[in-house]
């Protein structure tokens, strides 16, 4: 067990490509951190610097109280789960799990005991004598997890470990990873580009964009109070609606419509307005609303997504499937559900933060 501190870390690859800039991140002992962001934003690079597989160009990485910049991967007391699992194809599952322990001179009896325990936890005991190629994708994934946990490292590093699995298996393995991590209490850094995986696994999310941190926070905090238009559009599905608007005192103009803000206006002038699809609803006749021209719908079962335009801007709303639709509708939103971003920088404008974002997530009792 250990905390991990990433202090002003940057990475410039040998060709002069800058992959990561000035990352500062303090991870508490036992915390589950998810690095999320679009492809090429530097997630793997950051993780691999913590693992010791890439040199650290700038700043320092501390595991526990020790600066590990010049420590070999083997001596950093970490374990890594790779996207392609990286199981040793010529060794049995047992030997795959035992390899790291053997290299460290662990006594045979202890190796047996640890492998047996890990195999039992992951339910792979009956495959111990098989070679990896005789296993399904999900079973290989478990073996890769097993190889990480037998060593009882101070930290787990995951690089998109579930992206090679089918959708259903991904959901169940996700749960399993979370359960194992809770049970073992091992500090973990998990890389993914899947925002749903990020939301469900993380104690805290780190949203990366172009090699820089956009926002760090608990999943609900990030969801309800995105720090920038980038985060707003990246986290949550469907993506948050972002439209151009103009603030006139306590009123907001979006295209042809004008709605009152009940004192929630953070500034005045042109802004980017964000609103989540599920915060939009069909307006009552007597309330201020936006004129909505319906283009097409998508059925999600419990919800129906309606896509259309307000003025000339695209808007998606999530409504109950029972509600009758018509080509021209009026949609409304509570003023306190609106997000305002600077039109120049894309940063969130200070002001109201929804109450939900302030609640810490409820820890399940295990």
């Amino acid at each position, binding site marked *: 067990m250990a905390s991990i501190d990433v202090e002003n870390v940057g990475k410039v690859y040998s060709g002069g490509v800058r992959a990561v800039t000035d990352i500062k991140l303090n991870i508490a002992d036992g915390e589950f951190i998810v690095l999320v962001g679009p492809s090429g934003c530097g997630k793997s690079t950051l993780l691999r610097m913590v693992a010791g*597989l890439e040199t650290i160009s700038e700043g320092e990485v501390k595991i526990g109280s020790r600066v590990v910049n010049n420590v070999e991967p*083997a001596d950093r007391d970490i*374990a890594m789960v*790779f996207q*392609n699992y990286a199981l*040793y194809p*010529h060794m049995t599952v047992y030997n795959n799990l035992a390899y790291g322990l053997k*290299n460290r001179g662990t006594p045979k009896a202890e190796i047996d005991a640890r492998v047996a325990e890990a195999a039992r936890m992951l339910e792979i005991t009956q495959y111990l004598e098989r070679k990896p190629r005789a296993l399904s994708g999900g079973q290989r994934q478990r073996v890769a997890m097993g190889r990480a946990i037998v060593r009882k490292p101070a930290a787990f590093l995951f690089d998109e470990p579930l992206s090679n699995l089918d959708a259903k298996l991904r959901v169940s393995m996700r749960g399993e990873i979370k359960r194992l991590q809770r049970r073992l209490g091992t500090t973990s850094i998990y890389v993914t580009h899947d925002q749903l995986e990020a939301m469900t696994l993380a104690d805290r999310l780190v949203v990366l964009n172009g090699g820089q941190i956009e926002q760090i926070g608990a999943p609900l905090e990030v969801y309800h109070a995105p720090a920038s238009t980038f985060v707003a559009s990246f986290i949550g599905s469907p993506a948050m609606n972002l439209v151009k608007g103009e603030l006139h005192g306590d009123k907001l103009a979006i295209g042809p419509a004008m709605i009152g803000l009940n004192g929630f206006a953070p500034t005045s002038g042109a802004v980017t307005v964000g609103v989540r699809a599920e915060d939009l609803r069909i307006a009552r006749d007597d309330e201020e609303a936006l004129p909505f021209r319906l283009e097409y719908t998508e059925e999600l079962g419990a919800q129906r997504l309606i896509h259309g335009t307000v003025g000339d801007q695209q808007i998606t709303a999530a409504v109950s499937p029972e509600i009758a639709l018509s080509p021209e509708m009026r949609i409304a939103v509570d003023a306190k559900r609106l997000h305002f971003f600077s039109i120049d920088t894309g940063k969130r404008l200070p002001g109201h933060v929804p109450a939900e974002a302030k609640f810490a997530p409820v820890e399940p009792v295990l």
Partner: protein
Amino acid sequence: MQTKRTVFHSRILPYFLLAPQLIITLIFFVWPAAQAIWQSFLRQDPFGLKVTFVWFANYTRLLDDPDYLNALGATFVFSVGVTVLSMGLSLMFAVAVNRLLRSGRFYTTLLVWPYAVAPAAAGLLWWFMFNPSVGIIPYLLSFLGYEWNHRLHTGDAIVLIIIAAAWKQISYNFLFFVAGLQSVPQSLTEAAAIDGAGPFKRFWTVVFPLLSPTTFFLAVINITYAMFDTFGIVDATTSGGPSQSTNILVYKVYADGFIGLNLGPSAAQSVILMLIVVVLTVVQFRWIERKVQY
């Protein structure tokens, strides 16, 4: 496998198209091989006047002939020596180049050159370098107190032909090893590094086992090469001497048949060589069929 089939409407055309290859194979391979088999059952008197059919007498006599058994032994030492030396060196070069693939291009080009050199030319090259009176290597060795003379010392002679033959094969092995190394995923060595294995251990416990299909394939190729393709090298360097120590099978066939003009026994030797080739080829194809052995 789904391949596109060409349909010929003429019955003769396909045979016509195959003819050049078939004719070459028949004239240069099948016909001489058949002749050799036939010859191996015959014995001629010294003046070439009378030919008798002797069944397997040529073969049984060969197996009792100490010279032949000596050649068998020399061939064994020679093939193992060439295979181990050339594969060992090429693997070393391949690992080195694999680490620096960018600048590796240049070395790769250099390392591939020897393959383009004809065996006799290679033999001559080594003959010069090791020449006891004018060669550079005996000269250098003399400073270390070693008197190199492969015309007198059997050990020196064997070492010389092993080096000369192995050198030519390094390029070929090297290319296969580089390709093999590139196909070992980088994440495996990274996983092993995290698992606490140092560079040497990583190589021997992870990379080398994964190279085993390549290694096996090359071992067969190299043994085949050493046994059958080294006539030119032996002829240009030692001509089988001193005292038969480098008289390997393929050279002995030539020496007995064309210099000794002892056609029957020489033919029997070449039939035995042919059988060895067949066995090695079968082994190799079997292996390639089950490419992935882990």
